């Protein structure tokens, strides 16, 4: 490389850094800063009326999994906390599964429409995003509550004799979360299936595969990146869901998000809230790591 070329390259690099600096500062201040703050808070002592006292303590982290008996001060597993963790993870997994089973045929349907119609169907999928999440969740509540639309119809049809209790159950949470996150499953699945070469279907049928075998041996493996992406896009926000369990769970069925909010509000235990936030972050990171590995595995294979 000549001196002139080298000078040219140094100058472009300098310019690039100069241009990217403002964005980097915003990112540092808005993302990493608060994160560090949360990490620090998790090691402090809770104040009497919220906030924190600046003295080091592991109490916050301890309380994530164990709690001190009020009377004899012995430590035992915090059953309530573990229930909330378990509920969050299991509901998120089931939501992801249900979204997949509902989303895959939907995405396939859209991907197999003539190219001119696909934009319209995709528009329909994104339509719910146009309304506020809170309002949509209240709308679901209106449908499934005891005096709601669904129960009224079922009663009028004589299928049930007394209203079904659907609100404030895990079922209600599932309905709400699948409804909210389904588009996030459909869109990446669509992107994968739209690229799918449908001549491969004929090739597989021709080579004695049954319809199920075609689906399991050809379509699903090739659509895998889309399946993984959609699952992560549904699973991660489900874990941190706040509005849906707050409204459809009625404060009774908490998920991690509600539990964290509780610590910063009525619970007045900011260090525990901070520690829980970090735990949530770690679970999400682990999920993303699995995703990245799955994608890389695919790339290596191709």
């Amino acid at each position, binding site marked *: 490389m000549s001196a002139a070329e080298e000078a040219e390259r140094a100058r472009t690099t300098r310019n690039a850094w100069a241009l990217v600096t403002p964005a980097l500062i915003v990112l540092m201040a808005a993302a990493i800063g608060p994160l560090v703050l949360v990490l620090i808070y998790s090691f402090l002592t809770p104040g009497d009326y919220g906030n924190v006292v600046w003295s080091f303590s592991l109490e916050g982290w301890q309380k994530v999994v164990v709690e001190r008996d009020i009377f004899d001060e012995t430590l035992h597993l915090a059953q309530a906390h573990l229930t909330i963790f378990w509920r969050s993870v299991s509901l998120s997994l089931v939501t992801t599964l249900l979204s997949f089973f509902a989303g895959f045929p939907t995405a396939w349907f859209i991907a197999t429409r003539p190219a001119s119609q696909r934009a319209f169907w995709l528009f329909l999928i994104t339509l719910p995003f146009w309304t506020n999440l809170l309002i949509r969740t209240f709308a679901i509540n209106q449908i499934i509550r005891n005096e709601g639309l669904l129960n009224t119809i079922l009663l009028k049809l004589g299928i049930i004799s007394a209203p079904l209790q659907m609100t404030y159950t895990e079922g209600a949470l599932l309905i709400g979360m699948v409804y909210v996150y389904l588009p996030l499953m459909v869109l990446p699945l669509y992107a994968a299936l739209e690229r799918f070469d449908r001549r491969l279907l004929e090739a597989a049928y*021709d*080579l004695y595969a049954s319809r199920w075998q075609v689906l399991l041996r050809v379509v699903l493996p090739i659509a895998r990146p889309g399946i993984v992406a959609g699952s992560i896009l549904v699973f991660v926000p489900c874990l941190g869901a706040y509005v849906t369990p707050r409204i459809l769970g009625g404060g009774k069925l908490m998920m991690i998000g509600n539990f964290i909010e509780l610590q910063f509000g009525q619970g007045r235990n900011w260090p525990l809230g901070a520690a829980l936030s970090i735990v949530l972050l770690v679970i999400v990171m682990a999920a993303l790591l699995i995703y990245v590995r799955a994608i890389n595995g695919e790339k290596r294979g191709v």
Partner: protein
Amino acid sequence: MAKHIISARNLVKAFGTGEFAVRALDTVSLDIRPGEFFTLLGPSGCGKTTLLRLFAGFEMPSAGTILLDGEDVTVLPPNRRPINTVFQSYALFPHLTVAENVGFALKMQGKPRAEIEATVARMLALVRLEAMAGRKITQLSGGQQQRVALARALAPHPKVLLLDEPLSALDLKLRKEMQVELKRLQNETGITFIFVTHDQEEALTMSDRIAVMSAGKLQQVGTPKEIYTHPINRFVAAFIGETNFIEAVGETGGARLKTGDLIPVEGVLHGPVTVAIRPEQLRLVPPETEGAIAATVRDLVYFGTGTHCHMALADGTALTARLQSPASGEIGLALGESVGVLPTPGAAQLLRE
């Protein structure tokens, strides 16, 4: 084994309904013998691929039946017909290795693992890709992908192998190699090949028999020699090779041209006819030669192995002769020169059209 491995009986395939219906296949009946290399030849849109797709089971005929080895398979789905296809696009599975692609059908059939491995190894050896077994499809060249597609379709040892213009994506040199390769594979496996192409030269060099198709109909079925030397109509004569067409009137002893010359033809056909004669069956002789038709040289086109001599008869009818190149390449003709044209005896065909 039945006398015919595959038989089409009055196959009709219509797309669309009512007055907008298009007949992609119009009452096609065809018998293909076991072990034959059979070619469906025709221009694009002639229905040859539709016929192949009916044999494969990807589409159901609007009317008619298909017999495979004497059994009616008309409505059997593709996965239950012992017929495999080599696709024009190859349609190899991108998420599987070469070996997994080749073993796919056997795996779907639930064959034991050892048998699958043995067959895959044998198939890869057959197409000379042993070293590529573990490769991904995307790591292969077009010619190699072609071989994988062949091995994959041959692995379950089908009764019939359908090939849908499999060589069209390859460059000329590779295509010639694969033509030889295909013939070798057919000889070694003894499987009936039904080959679709629009390339008449490919059809002539490879086939045991050819079916020429046009506008959804079968025009002529025969050996390459029959089709080339005795085309049944003007379409076949024009589509296979190059042909001169001369309007004439049939009379006892031959065809009388508008110029008054008589081309002797065996068999009597009275009334208006078309004389079809190949350029290589015309000899140029001195104009005064007995029986020669007078013509004027209009254009000379040299193409290496020979020269096309374009001429006009006295009434303006265009005529082309194909002359062998002498060692020097010079055929010693000049534009505007008067020559005599003498057809090889027996080479002229009379077409009623």
